[in-house]
Protein backbone atom coordinates (compact mmCIF):
# COMPACT_ATOMS: atom_id res chain seq x y z
CA UNK A 1 0.00 0.00 0.00
CA UNK A 2 1.57 3.27 -1.03
CA UNK A 3 2.02 5.94 1.56
CA UNK A 4 1.66 9.47 0.31
CA UNK A 5 3.27 11.96 2.66
CA UNK A 6 1.24 14.98 3.63
CA UNK A 7 3.25 18.08 4.45
CA UNK A 8 3.27 18.85 8.12
CA UNK A 9 1.68 22.13 9.10
CA UNK A 10 4.12 24.99 9.45
CA UNK A 11 4.20 27.19 12.51
CA UNK A 12 2.28 29.92 10.68
CA UNK A 13 -0.44 27.45 9.83
CA UNK A 14 -0.60 26.24 13.40
CA UNK A 15 -0.85 29.75 14.76
CA UNK A 16 -3.49 30.56 12.20
CA UNK A 17 -5.38 27.53 13.30
CA UNK A 18 -5.09 28.39 16.98
CA UNK A 19 -6.04 32.01 16.62
CA UNK A 20 -8.89 31.01 14.37
CA UNK A 21 -7.86 33.25 11.48
CA UNK A 22 -10.14 31.49 9.01
CA UNK A 23 -13.02 31.85 11.41
CA UNK A 24 -12.37 35.55 11.66
CA UNK A 25 -12.25 35.86 7.89
CA UNK A 26 -15.56 34.06 7.66
CA UNK A 27 -17.03 36.35 10.30
CA UNK A 28 -15.79 39.31 8.29
CA UNK A 29 -17.58 38.01 5.23
CA UNK A 30 -20.90 37.65 6.98
CA UNK A 31 -20.47 41.06 8.57
CA UNK A 32 -19.87 42.53 5.15
CA UNK A 33 -23.08 40.96 3.91
CA UNK A 34 -24.93 42.20 6.95
CA UNK A 35 -23.75 45.78 6.63
CA UNK A 36 -24.22 45.67 2.88
CA UNK A 37 -27.82 44.62 3.36
CA UNK A 38 -28.41 47.54 5.66
CA UNK A 39 -26.70 50.24 3.70
CA UNK A 40 -27.19 49.68 0.03
CA UNK A 41 -30.23 48.86 -1.97
CA UNK A 42 -29.02 47.43 -5.23
CA UNK A 43 -29.54 43.75 -5.12
CA UNK A 44 -26.13 42.29 -5.67
CA UNK A 45 -24.82 39.74 -3.25
CA UNK A 46 -22.59 41.29 -0.67
CA UNK A 47 -23.95 44.72 -1.39
CA UNK A 48 -27.63 44.50 -0.84
CA UNK A 49 -30.74 42.44 -0.64
CA UNK A 50 -32.02 40.06 -3.26
CA UNK A 51 -35.58 40.01 -2.05
CA UNK A 52 -38.20 41.45 -4.32
CA UNK A 53 -41.14 42.24 -2.13
CA UNK A 54 -43.90 40.96 -4.37
CA UNK A 55 -46.80 41.96 -4.46
CA UNK A 56 -45.84 45.41 -3.26
CA UNK A 57 -43.18 45.62 -5.94
CA UNK A 58 -43.82 43.97 -9.28
CA UNK A 59 -40.78 42.62 -11.07
CA UNK A 60 -39.47 44.45 -14.08
CA UNK A 61 -40.05 42.53 -17.25
CA UNK A 62 -38.59 43.11 -20.68
CA UNK A 63 -40.41 45.41 -23.10
CA UNK A 64 -40.96 42.49 -25.48
CA UNK A 65 -42.20 40.20 -22.73
CA UNK A 66 -44.94 37.82 -23.89
CA UNK A 67 -47.71 38.34 -21.37
CA UNK A 68 -51.46 38.72 -21.44
CA UNK A 69 -53.03 39.36 -24.86
CA UNK A 70 -54.70 42.62 -25.72
CA UNK A 71 -56.68 43.92 -28.65
CA UNK A 72 -55.57 47.42 -29.47
CA UNK A 73 -57.90 50.23 -30.47
CA UNK A 74 -57.35 53.00 -32.96
CA UNK A 75 -56.24 55.98 -30.85
CA UNK A 76 -58.33 58.52 -32.81
CA UNK A 77 -61.55 56.75 -33.64
CA UNK A 78 -61.59 54.39 -30.64
CA UNK A 79 -62.64 51.58 -32.87
CA UNK A 80 -60.99 48.24 -32.80
CA UNK A 81 -58.11 47.73 -35.16
CA UNK A 82 -59.12 44.14 -35.76
CA UNK A 83 -60.27 43.40 -39.30
CA UNK A 84 -61.37 39.84 -38.57
CA UNK A 85 -58.88 38.40 -41.01
CA UNK A 86 -58.46 35.23 -38.86
CA UNK A 87 -54.70 35.15 -39.45
CA UNK A 88 -53.98 35.00 -35.73
CA UNK A 89 -56.25 31.97 -35.30
CA UNK A 90 -54.55 30.26 -38.19
CA UNK A 91 -51.10 31.05 -36.86
CA UNK A 92 -51.81 29.82 -33.34
CA UNK A 93 -50.21 26.38 -32.74
CA UNK A 94 -52.52 25.70 -29.81
CA UNK A 95 -55.81 26.64 -31.44
CA UNK A 96 -56.74 28.93 -28.62
CA UNK A 97 -58.04 31.84 -30.69
CA UNK A 98 -61.52 31.93 -32.13
CA UNK A 99 -62.39 34.91 -34.35
CA UNK A 100 -66.10 35.33 -35.03
CA UNK A 101 -66.84 37.81 -37.79
CA UNK A 102 -70.08 39.40 -38.83
CA UNK A 103 -71.27 41.27 -41.88
CA UNK A 104 -72.39 44.84 -41.63
CA UNK A 105 -73.88 47.11 -44.19
CA UNK A 106 -71.69 50.03 -45.11
CA UNK A 107 -72.06 52.58 -47.82
CA UNK A 108 -68.99 52.93 -49.95
CA UNK A 109 -69.05 55.51 -52.70
CA UNK A 110 -72.80 55.60 -52.67
CA UNK A 111 -73.27 51.87 -53.00
CA UNK A 112 -74.28 49.62 -50.16
CA UNK A 113 -71.62 46.96 -49.54
CA UNK A 114 -71.17 44.25 -47.01
CA UNK A 115 -68.10 44.52 -44.88
CA UNK A 116 -66.74 41.90 -42.60
CA UNK A 117 -66.06 43.18 -39.10
CA UNK A 118 -65.24 41.58 -35.82
CA UNK A 119 -68.16 40.33 -33.78
CA UNK A 120 -66.56 38.34 -31.03
CA UNK A 121 -62.99 37.32 -30.23
CA UNK A 122 -62.40 34.35 -27.94
CA UNK A 123 -58.91 33.79 -26.55
CA UNK A 124 -58.24 30.84 -24.23
CA UNK A 125 -55.29 31.85 -22.10
CA UNK A 126 -55.16 28.45 -20.40
CA UNK A 127 -54.03 26.89 -23.66
CA UNK A 128 -51.88 29.76 -24.76
CA UNK A 129 -48.15 29.14 -24.71
CA UNK A 130 -47.28 32.79 -25.23
CA UNK A 131 -45.22 32.12 -28.36
CA UNK A 132 -46.49 35.42 -29.90
CA UNK A 133 -47.02 33.88 -33.33
CA UNK A 134 -50.44 35.52 -33.31
CA UNK A 135 -48.83 38.87 -32.55
CA UNK A 136 -46.46 38.35 -35.45
CA UNK A 137 -49.31 37.34 -37.77
CA UNK A 138 -51.62 40.28 -37.08
CA UNK A 139 -51.41 42.71 -40.03
CA UNK A 140 -52.84 45.69 -38.21
CA UNK A 141 -50.84 45.46 -34.96
CA UNK A 142 -54.10 44.88 -33.19
CA UNK A 143 -53.32 41.74 -31.21
CA UNK A 144 -50.44 42.31 -28.87
CA UNK A 145 -48.99 40.40 -25.96
CA UNK A 146 -48.54 42.83 -23.09
CA UNK A 147 -46.32 42.72 -20.05
CA UNK A 148 -49.04 41.62 -17.68
CA UNK A 149 -48.11 38.21 -16.22
CA UNK A 150 -50.72 37.89 -13.51
CA UNK A 151 -53.24 35.72 -15.28
CA UNK A 152 -54.65 33.67 -12.44
CA UNK A 153 -58.39 33.28 -12.12
CA UNK A 154 -60.71 31.47 -9.75
CA UNK A 155 -62.24 29.15 -12.29
CA UNK A 156 -61.37 27.42 -15.54
CA UNK A 157 -63.99 29.49 -17.31
CA UNK A 158 -62.20 32.63 -16.20
CA UNK A 159 -59.27 31.71 -18.43
CA UNK A 160 -61.31 32.16 -21.58
CA UNK A 161 -61.27 35.82 -22.43
CA UNK A 162 -63.76 37.57 -24.64
CA UNK A 163 -63.37 40.68 -26.72
CA UNK A 164 -64.25 43.07 -23.95
CA UNK A 165 -61.72 41.65 -21.57
CA UNK A 166 -59.09 41.61 -24.29
CA UNK A 167 -59.70 45.24 -25.14
CA UNK A 168 -59.86 46.59 -21.65
CA UNK A 169 -57.38 44.33 -19.91
CA UNK A 170 -57.68 43.09 -16.38
CA UNK A 171 -57.32 45.10 -13.23
CA UNK A 172 -54.44 44.24 -11.01
CA UNK A 173 -54.95 44.54 -7.27
CA UNK A 174 -52.88 47.28 -5.75
CA UNK A 175 -51.32 46.54 -2.36
CA UNK A 176 -50.42 49.55 -0.31
CA UNK A 177 -46.91 49.29 1.07
Amino acid at each position, binding site marked *: *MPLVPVP*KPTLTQKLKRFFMVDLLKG*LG*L*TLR*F*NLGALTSSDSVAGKGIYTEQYPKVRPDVAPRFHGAPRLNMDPETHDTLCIACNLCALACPEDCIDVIPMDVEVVVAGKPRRKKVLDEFIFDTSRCMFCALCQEACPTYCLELTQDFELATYSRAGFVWNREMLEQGRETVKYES
Partner: protein
Amino acid sequence: MALIALLAAPNFIDTLLLKFFSEQTVNYVIWPFIQVGAVVTITAGWVAYATYLERKISAFIQARLGPMRVGPWGLLQPIADGLKLLVKEDFIPENADRWVFFVAPYIAVVAAFVVMAVVPFGPDWAVITDVNIGVLFVLAVSSVGVLALILAGWSSNSKYALLGALRSSAQMVSYEVSMGLAIIGALMFGRTLSLSGIVGAQASDSIWFLLYQPVGFVIFLISGIAENNRAPFDLPEAESELVAGFHTEYSGFRWSLFFMAEYAAMVVVTAVATTLYLGGWYFPFVYRLTEAKGYHNAYVVVSLIVFLAKAGLLLYLYFWLRWTLPRFRYDQLMDLGWKWMLPAALINIVVSAIGVGTLQGLDGWHGMDTIRSVTSGLGLTPTGKVIAIAFGVANLFLTAGILSLINWRSRDFNLKKQRSKIRLVDLPKGKPAVAPVAVSEP
Protein backbone atom coordinates in the same frame (compact mmCIF):
# COMPACT_ATOMS: atom_id res chain seq x y z
CA MET B 1 -41.05 65.35 27.86
CA ALA B 2 -41.32 61.63 28.24
CA LEU B 3 -37.68 61.44 29.19
CA ILE B 4 -38.10 64.09 31.86
CA ALA B 5 -41.14 62.23 33.15
CA LEU B 6 -39.15 59.01 33.20
CA LEU B 7 -36.34 60.64 35.10
CA ALA B 8 -38.62 62.35 37.59
CA ALA B 9 -40.98 59.42 38.05
CA PRO B 10 -39.09 57.48 40.71
CA ASN B 11 -39.03 60.44 43.08
CA PHE B 12 -42.68 61.12 42.48
CA ILE B 13 -43.69 57.51 43.02
CA ASP B 14 -41.51 57.35 46.10
CA THR B 15 -43.21 60.31 47.73
CA LEU B 16 -46.60 58.93 46.77
CA LEU B 17 -45.91 55.55 48.29
CA LEU B 18 -44.44 56.98 51.45
CA LYS B 19 -47.78 58.56 52.16
CA PHE B 20 -49.44 55.14 52.42
CA PHE B 21 -46.80 52.78 53.68
CA SER B 22 -43.99 52.85 56.16
CA GLU B 23 -40.56 53.60 54.83
CA GLN B 24 -39.35 50.09 55.50
CA THR B 25 -42.21 48.56 53.52
CA VAL B 26 -41.62 50.89 50.65
CA ASN B 27 -37.91 50.31 50.47
CA TYR B 28 -37.85 46.57 51.04
CA VAL B 29 -41.16 45.33 49.67
CA ILE B 30 -42.75 47.66 47.18
CA TRP B 31 -39.74 48.97 45.32
CA PRO B 32 -38.31 45.47 44.84
CA PHE B 33 -41.66 44.34 43.43
CA ILE B 34 -41.63 47.22 41.01
CA GLN B 35 -38.05 46.46 40.05
CA VAL B 36 -38.83 42.79 39.58
CA GLY B 37 -41.81 43.64 37.43
CA ALA B 38 -39.73 46.00 35.34
CA VAL B 39 -36.87 43.55 34.91
CA VAL B 40 -39.15 40.66 34.01
CA THR B 41 -41.00 42.82 31.51
CA ILE B 42 -37.81 44.13 30.00
CA THR B 43 -36.27 40.67 29.83
CA ALA B 44 -39.36 39.15 28.31
CA GLY B 45 -39.53 41.94 25.77
CA TRP B 46 -35.82 41.59 25.07
CA VAL B 47 -36.29 37.85 24.56
CA ALA B 48 -39.22 38.31 22.21
CA TYR B 49 -37.38 40.87 20.16
CA ALA B 50 -34.25 38.75 20.22
CA THR B 51 -36.20 36.24 18.15
CA TYR B 52 -37.15 39.04 15.78
CA LEU B 53 -33.58 40.30 15.63
CA GLU B 54 -32.31 36.82 14.98
CA ARG B 55 -34.59 36.50 11.98
CA LYS B 56 -33.68 39.92 10.66
CA ILE B 57 -29.95 39.56 11.19
CA SER B 58 -29.87 36.09 9.70
CA ALA B 59 -31.84 37.47 6.75
CA PHE B 60 -29.45 40.35 6.18
CA ILE B 61 -26.48 38.05 6.36
CA GLN B 62 -28.14 35.94 3.69
CA ALA B 63 -28.95 38.98 1.52
CA ARG B 64 -32.68 38.78 2.10
CA LEU B 65 -35.15 40.76 4.16
CA GLY B 66 -36.66 38.66 6.94
CA PRO B 67 -40.09 39.39 8.41
CA MET B 68 -41.56 42.47 6.75
CA ARG B 69 -45.31 41.96 6.58
CA VAL B 70 -46.64 41.80 10.10
CA GLY B 71 -45.99 45.33 11.25
CA PRO B 72 -43.84 48.11 9.88
CA TRP B 73 -40.61 46.30 9.07
CA GLY B 74 -42.11 43.18 10.62
CA LEU B 75 -41.81 44.54 14.15
CA LEU B 76 -44.98 42.86 15.34
CA GLN B 77 -43.74 39.43 14.24
CA PRO B 78 -42.94 38.21 17.80
CA ILE B 79 -46.49 39.02 18.83
CA ALA B 80 -47.83 37.06 15.87
CA ASP B 81 -45.56 34.14 16.79
CA GLY B 82 -46.67 34.28 20.39
CA LEU B 83 -50.34 34.28 19.46
CA LYS B 84 -49.82 31.37 17.09
CA LEU B 85 -48.11 29.33 19.78
CA LEU B 86 -50.83 30.09 22.28
CA VAL B 87 -53.59 28.72 20.11
CA LYS B 88 -51.82 25.49 19.17
CA GLU B 89 -53.14 22.23 20.52
CA ASP B 90 -51.56 21.27 23.78
CA PHE B 91 -51.24 17.50 24.02
CA ILE B 92 -49.32 15.26 26.34
CA PRO B 93 -47.87 11.92 25.21
CA GLU B 94 -49.73 8.86 26.37
CA ASN B 95 -47.55 7.36 29.07
CA ALA B 96 -45.74 10.52 29.92
CA ASP B 97 -45.09 11.48 33.49
CA ARG B 98 -47.71 14.21 33.70
CA TRP B 99 -46.55 16.40 36.53
CA VAL B 100 -42.91 16.35 35.54
CA PHE B 101 -43.95 17.06 31.95
CA PHE B 102 -45.91 20.09 33.14
CA VAL B 103 -43.22 21.47 35.37
CA ALA B 104 -40.09 21.07 33.21
CA PRO B 105 -40.59 24.13 30.98
CA TYR B 106 -41.34 26.29 33.98
CA ILE B 107 -38.13 25.24 35.68
CA ALA B 108 -36.19 26.18 32.55
CA VAL B 109 -37.78 29.61 32.35
CA VAL B 110 -37.43 30.31 36.06
CA ALA B 111 -33.77 29.27 36.09
CA ALA B 112 -33.06 31.65 33.27
CA PHE B 113 -35.04 34.58 34.62
CA VAL B 114 -34.01 34.41 38.28
CA VAL B 115 -30.42 35.22 37.40
CA MET B 116 -31.57 38.64 36.24
CA ALA B 117 -32.19 39.50 39.88
CA VAL B 118 -28.52 39.98 40.60
CA VAL B 119 -27.28 41.37 37.30
CA PRO B 120 -26.40 45.05 37.73
CA PHE B 121 -28.10 46.93 34.94
CA GLY B 122 -27.09 50.27 36.37
CA PRO B 123 -25.66 51.93 39.45
CA ASP B 124 -28.26 52.69 42.06
CA TRP B 125 -31.80 51.45 41.68
CA ALA B 126 -31.16 49.56 38.44
CA VAL B 127 -30.15 46.38 40.21
CA ILE B 128 -32.79 44.43 42.05
CA THR B 129 -30.53 43.07 44.70
CA ASP B 130 -26.80 43.12 44.99
CA VAL B 131 -25.97 39.84 46.64
CA ASN B 132 -22.49 39.53 48.09
CA ILE B 133 -21.97 36.22 46.37
CA GLY B 134 -23.45 37.31 43.06
CA VAL B 135 -21.13 35.27 40.85
CA LEU B 136 -21.76 32.09 42.79
CA PHE B 137 -25.49 32.72 42.64
CA VAL B 138 -25.36 33.18 38.89
CA LEU B 139 -23.45 29.95 38.33
CA ALA B 140 -25.63 27.98 40.69
CA VAL B 141 -28.96 29.15 39.36
CA SER B 142 -28.06 28.86 35.71
CA SER B 143 -27.07 25.26 36.37
CA VAL B 144 -30.65 24.52 37.37
CA GLY B 145 -31.59 24.87 33.72
CA VAL B 146 -29.86 21.58 33.02
CA LEU B 147 -32.34 19.89 35.35
CA ALA B 148 -35.22 21.18 33.28
CA LEU B 149 -33.70 19.59 30.20
CA ILE B 150 -33.31 16.20 31.80
CA LEU B 151 -36.81 16.29 33.28
CA ALA B 152 -38.28 17.20 29.93
CA GLY B 153 -36.47 14.40 28.17
CA TRP B 154 -37.33 11.82 30.79
CA SER B 155 -40.96 12.72 31.17
CA SER B 156 -41.62 12.66 27.45
CA ASN B 157 -41.53 8.89 27.47
CA SER B 158 -39.75 8.81 24.16
CA LYS B 159 -36.33 7.27 23.64
CA TYR B 160 -35.23 9.95 21.25
CA ALA B 161 -36.26 12.70 23.63
CA LEU B 162 -34.38 11.03 26.44
CA LEU B 163 -31.20 10.56 24.46
CA GLY B 164 -31.41 14.09 23.11
CA ALA B 165 -31.86 15.43 26.61
CA LEU B 166 -28.93 13.44 27.97
CA ARG B 167 -26.68 14.60 25.17
CA SER B 168 -27.70 18.16 25.60
CA SER B 169 -27.28 18.11 29.36
CA ALA B 170 -23.88 16.41 29.08
CA GLN B 171 -22.78 19.20 26.80
CA MET B 172 -24.07 21.87 29.14
CA VAL B 173 -22.43 20.34 32.16
CA SER B 174 -19.05 20.02 30.45
CA TYR B 175 -18.99 23.64 29.49
CA GLU B 176 -20.19 24.88 32.85
CA VAL B 177 -16.96 23.67 34.41
CA SER B 178 -14.83 25.81 32.16
CA MET B 179 -17.27 28.71 32.45
CA GLY B 180 -16.93 28.76 36.21
CA LEU B 181 -13.17 28.49 36.06
CA ALA B 182 -12.87 31.25 33.48
CA ILE B 183 -14.66 33.63 35.81
CA ILE B 184 -12.03 33.18 38.48
CA GLY B 185 -9.49 35.15 36.48
CA ALA B 186 -11.77 38.18 36.46
CA LEU B 187 -12.44 37.71 40.14
CA MET B 188 -8.76 38.04 40.91
CA PHE B 189 -8.86 41.57 39.62
CA GLY B 190 -12.28 42.35 41.00
CA ARG B 191 -11.58 40.89 44.46
CA THR B 192 -15.27 40.46 45.20
CA LEU B 193 -17.95 38.02 44.16
CA SER B 194 -20.61 40.70 44.06
CA LEU B 195 -21.42 41.66 40.47
CA SER B 196 -21.97 45.31 41.32
CA GLY B 197 -18.62 45.24 43.09
CA ILE B 198 -16.91 43.91 39.98
CA VAL B 199 -18.44 46.67 37.89
CA GLY B 200 -17.36 49.13 40.56
CA ALA B 201 -13.82 47.75 40.34
CA GLN B 202 -13.78 48.28 36.59
CA ALA B 203 -15.29 51.72 37.01
CA SER B 204 -12.82 52.89 39.60
CA ASP B 205 -9.92 51.72 37.47
CA SER B 206 -11.48 52.92 34.20
CA ILE B 207 -10.52 49.64 32.61
CA TRP B 208 -12.28 46.70 31.13
CA PHE B 209 -11.25 43.35 32.51
CA LEU B 210 -11.28 42.19 28.91
CA LEU B 211 -7.86 43.78 28.58
CA TYR B 212 -6.47 41.89 31.54
CA GLN B 213 -8.17 38.62 30.68
CA PRO B 214 -8.59 38.11 26.95
CA VAL B 215 -8.28 34.35 27.34
CA GLY B 216 -10.83 34.34 30.13
CA PHE B 217 -13.28 36.33 28.04
CA VAL B 218 -12.94 34.03 25.07
CA ILE B 219 -13.31 30.93 27.21
CA PHE B 220 -16.33 32.40 28.98
CA LEU B 221 -18.03 33.31 25.74
CA ILE B 222 -17.37 29.98 24.07
CA SER B 223 -18.54 28.12 27.13
CA GLY B 224 -21.57 30.34 27.39
CA ILE B 225 -22.51 29.70 23.80
CA ALA B 226 -22.14 25.97 24.34
CA GLU B 227 -24.22 26.25 27.54
CA ASN B 228 -27.05 27.68 25.59
CA ASN B 229 -26.92 24.96 22.92
CA ARG B 230 -26.45 27.71 20.38
CA ALA B 231 -24.44 28.62 17.34
CA PRO B 232 -21.82 26.06 16.39
CA PHE B 233 -22.66 23.89 19.40
CA ASP B 234 -26.26 23.16 18.60
CA LEU B 235 -25.99 19.53 17.56
CA PRO B 236 -28.49 18.35 20.18
CA GLU B 237 -30.89 20.91 18.84
CA ALA B 238 -30.21 20.36 15.20
CA GLU B 239 -30.24 16.64 15.27
CA SER B 240 -33.37 16.89 17.26
CA GLU B 241 -34.99 18.76 14.46
CA LEU B 242 -34.17 15.82 12.28
CA VAL B 243 -34.73 13.02 14.77
CA ALA B 244 -35.99 14.16 18.13
CA GLY B 245 -34.79 16.13 21.12
CA PHE B 246 -35.75 16.97 24.63
CA HIS B 247 -38.55 19.25 23.52
CA THR B 248 -39.96 17.04 20.82
CA GLU B 249 -43.16 16.17 22.68
CA TYR B 250 -43.83 19.75 23.62
CA SER B 251 -46.07 21.92 21.51
CA GLY B 252 -47.67 25.31 21.67
CA PHE B 253 -47.18 27.29 24.81
CA ARG B 254 -44.93 24.79 26.57
CA TRP B 255 -42.55 24.74 23.63
CA SER B 256 -42.54 28.49 23.56
CA LEU B 257 -41.50 28.45 27.22
CA PHE B 258 -38.44 26.36 26.31
CA PHE B 259 -37.73 28.69 23.47
CA MET B 260 -38.01 31.70 25.77
CA ALA B 261 -35.78 29.98 28.31
CA GLU B 262 -33.13 29.45 25.65
CA TYR B 263 -33.16 33.08 24.61
CA ALA B 264 -33.33 34.28 28.20
CA ALA B 265 -30.28 32.16 28.99
CA MET B 266 -28.55 33.85 26.05
CA VAL B 267 -29.43 37.22 27.48
CA VAL B 268 -28.14 36.09 30.89
CA VAL B 269 -24.79 34.94 29.51
CA THR B 270 -24.33 38.18 27.60
CA ALA B 271 -25.31 40.22 30.63
CA VAL B 272 -22.88 38.36 32.89
CA ALA B 273 -20.10 38.59 30.30
CA THR B 274 -20.70 42.32 30.01
CA THR B 275 -20.59 42.71 33.75
CA LEU B 276 -17.45 40.69 34.25
CA TYR B 277 -15.38 41.62 31.24
CA LEU B 278 -16.78 44.62 29.42
CA GLY B 279 -17.19 46.96 32.33
CA GLY B 280 -20.93 46.51 32.92
CA TRP B 281 -22.74 49.81 33.01
CA TYR B 282 -19.56 51.84 33.24
CA PHE B 283 -18.59 54.18 30.46
CA PRO B 284 -16.03 56.97 30.73
CA PHE B 285 -17.33 60.51 31.22
CA VAL B 286 -20.87 59.40 32.09
CA TYR B 287 -20.35 60.02 35.78
CA ARG B 288 -18.78 63.38 35.16
CA LEU B 289 -21.58 64.49 32.90
CA THR B 290 -24.53 63.36 34.96
CA GLU B 291 -24.05 62.38 38.57
CA ALA B 292 -21.42 64.94 39.39
CA LYS B 293 -23.84 67.57 38.16
CA GLY B 294 -26.64 66.22 40.29
CA TYR B 295 -28.74 64.36 37.73
CA HIS B 296 -28.86 61.11 39.59
CA ASN B 297 -31.68 59.43 37.69
CA ALA B 298 -30.21 60.48 34.38
CA TYR B 299 -26.96 58.83 35.46
CA VAL B 300 -28.77 55.59 36.13
CA VAL B 301 -30.74 55.69 32.89
CA VAL B 302 -27.68 56.45 30.77
CA SER B 303 -25.76 53.67 32.48
CA LEU B 304 -28.67 51.35 31.80
CA ILE B 305 -28.54 52.22 28.13
CA VAL B 306 -24.77 51.65 28.10
CA PHE B 307 -25.24 48.23 29.66
CA LEU B 308 -27.95 47.24 27.22
CA ALA B 309 -25.83 48.40 24.31
CA LYS B 310 -22.88 46.29 25.40
CA ALA B 311 -25.03 43.25 26.06
CA GLY B 312 -26.69 43.88 22.72
CA LEU B 313 -23.33 43.75 20.98
CA LEU B 314 -22.58 40.38 22.53
CA LEU B 315 -26.04 39.19 21.55
CA TYR B 316 -25.25 40.24 17.99
CA LEU B 317 -22.10 38.14 18.30
CA TYR B 318 -24.31 35.15 19.13
CA PHE B 319 -26.39 35.62 15.99
CA TRP B 320 -23.34 36.38 13.89
CA LEU B 321 -21.63 33.18 14.96
CA ARG B 322 -24.71 31.08 14.39
CA TRP B 323 -25.07 32.13 10.81
CA THR B 324 -21.39 31.91 9.99
CA LEU B 325 -20.16 28.62 11.36
CA PRO B 326 -21.07 25.03 10.63
CA ARG B 327 -21.95 22.79 13.50
CA PHE B 328 -19.55 20.86 15.67
CA ARG B 329 -19.94 17.12 15.69
CA TYR B 330 -20.80 15.90 19.17
CA ASP B 331 -17.46 14.27 19.82
CA GLN B 332 -15.63 17.36 18.58
CA LEU B 333 -17.80 19.41 20.92
CA MET B 334 -16.97 17.33 23.99
CA ASP B 335 -13.32 17.25 22.93
CA LEU B 336 -13.30 21.02 22.84
CA GLY B 337 -14.95 21.29 26.22
CA TRP B 338 -12.74 18.94 28.15
CA LYS B 339 -9.42 19.01 26.34
CA TRP B 340 -9.21 22.62 25.26
CA MET B 341 -11.52 24.85 27.31
CA LEU B 342 -10.85 23.30 30.71
CA PRO B 343 -7.04 23.30 30.48
CA ALA B 344 -7.18 26.80 29.02
CA ALA B 345 -9.26 27.99 31.95
CA LEU B 346 -6.86 26.37 34.42
CA ILE B 347 -3.87 27.90 32.67
CA ASN B 348 -5.66 31.22 32.78
CA ILE B 349 -6.06 30.95 36.54
CA VAL B 350 -2.40 30.09 37.04
CA VAL B 351 -1.11 32.84 34.79
CA SER B 352 -3.49 35.42 36.28
CA ALA B 353 -2.40 34.43 39.75
CA ILE B 354 1.22 34.81 38.75
CA GLY B 355 0.32 38.18 37.25
CA VAL B 356 -1.44 39.44 40.36
CA GLY B 357 1.36 38.12 42.51
CA THR B 358 3.89 39.92 40.34
CA LEU B 359 1.92 43.12 40.63
CA GLN B 360 1.77 42.86 44.37
CA GLY B 361 5.46 41.99 44.55
CA LEU B 362 6.56 44.77 42.25
CA ASP B 363 4.67 47.34 44.25
CA GLY B 364 7.21 49.58 45.84
CA TRP B 365 10.18 47.84 44.23
CA HIS B 366 12.66 50.41 42.98
CA GLY B 367 9.98 53.05 43.29
CA MET B 368 7.57 51.36 40.87
CA ASP B 369 4.02 51.74 42.11
CA THR B 370 1.64 49.22 40.75
CA ILE B 371 -1.18 49.18 43.21
CA ARG B 372 -2.99 52.24 44.35
CA SER B 373 -5.51 50.84 46.71
CA VAL B 374 -7.27 47.58 47.25
CA THR B 375 -10.51 49.06 48.48
CA SER B 376 -12.42 48.71 45.25
CA GLY B 377 -10.94 45.93 43.25
CA LEU B 378 -7.28 45.75 42.56
CA GLY B 379 -6.73 49.44 42.05
CA LEU B 380 -3.82 49.72 39.69
CA THR B 381 -1.63 52.59 38.66
CA PRO B 382 -1.00 53.01 34.95
CA THR B 383 2.25 51.09 35.31
CA GLY B 384 0.36 48.30 36.96
CA LYS B 385 -2.24 48.35 34.21
CA VAL B 386 0.40 48.05 31.51
CA ILE B 387 1.96 45.10 33.31
CA ALA B 388 -1.44 43.46 33.71
CA ILE B 389 -2.29 43.92 30.04
CA ALA B 390 1.10 42.51 29.10
CA PHE B 391 0.32 39.46 31.22
CA GLY B 392 -3.02 39.16 29.47
CA VAL B 393 -1.43 39.11 26.03
CA ALA B 394 1.33 36.76 27.11
CA ASN B 395 -1.41 34.55 28.48
CA LEU B 396 -2.82 34.15 24.98
CA PHE B 397 0.42 32.82 23.53
CA LEU B 398 1.22 30.73 26.57
CA THR B 399 -2.23 29.14 26.47
CA ALA B 400 -1.80 28.49 22.76
CA GLY B 401 1.48 26.72 23.38
CA ILE B 402 0.38 24.64 26.34
CA LEU B 403 -2.89 23.59 24.73
CA SER B 404 -1.06 22.44 21.62
CA LEU B 405 1.33 20.52 23.80
CA ILE B 406 -1.44 18.83 25.75
CA ASN B 407 -3.28 17.84 22.61
CA TRP B 408 -0.20 16.87 20.66
CA ARG B 409 -0.77 13.18 20.35
CA SER B 410 -4.42 12.90 21.12
CA ARG B 411 -6.45 14.93 18.66
CA ASP B 412 -9.35 13.47 16.77
CA PHE B 413 -8.66 9.85 17.59
CA ASN B 414 -5.09 10.14 16.31
CA LEU B 415 -6.23 11.40 12.97
CA LYS B 416 -3.13 13.53 13.06
CA LYS B 417 -1.01 10.45 12.92
CA GLN B 418 -3.15 9.05 10.17
CA ARG B 419 -3.11 12.36 8.39
CA SER B 420 0.62 12.48 8.04
CA LYS B 421 0.43 9.62 5.62
CA ILE B 422 -2.45 8.83 3.32
CA ARG B 423 -2.91 5.40 1.82
CA LEU B 424 -4.32 5.18 -1.68
CA VAL B 425 -6.76 2.37 -2.22
CA ASP B 426 -8.48 1.49 -5.49
CA LEU B 427 -11.94 1.21 -4.10
CA PRO B 428 -13.83 -0.68 -6.83
CA LYS B 429 -11.32 -3.48 -7.04
CA GLY B 430 -10.22 -3.32 -3.42
CA LYS B 431 -6.61 -3.34 -4.49
CA PRO B 432 -4.01 -0.66 -4.15
CA ALA B 433 -4.06 1.88 -6.96
CA VAL B 434 -0.31 1.79 -7.54
CA ALA B 435 2.35 -0.67 -6.69
CA PRO B 436 3.49 -0.47 -3.10
CA VAL B 437 6.40 1.85 -2.52
CA ALA B 438 8.70 1.14 0.34
CA VAL B 439 8.50 4.14 2.65
CA SER B 440 9.73 3.89 6.20
CA GLU B 441 7.12 4.31 8.87
CA PRO B 442 7.72 7.10 11.41
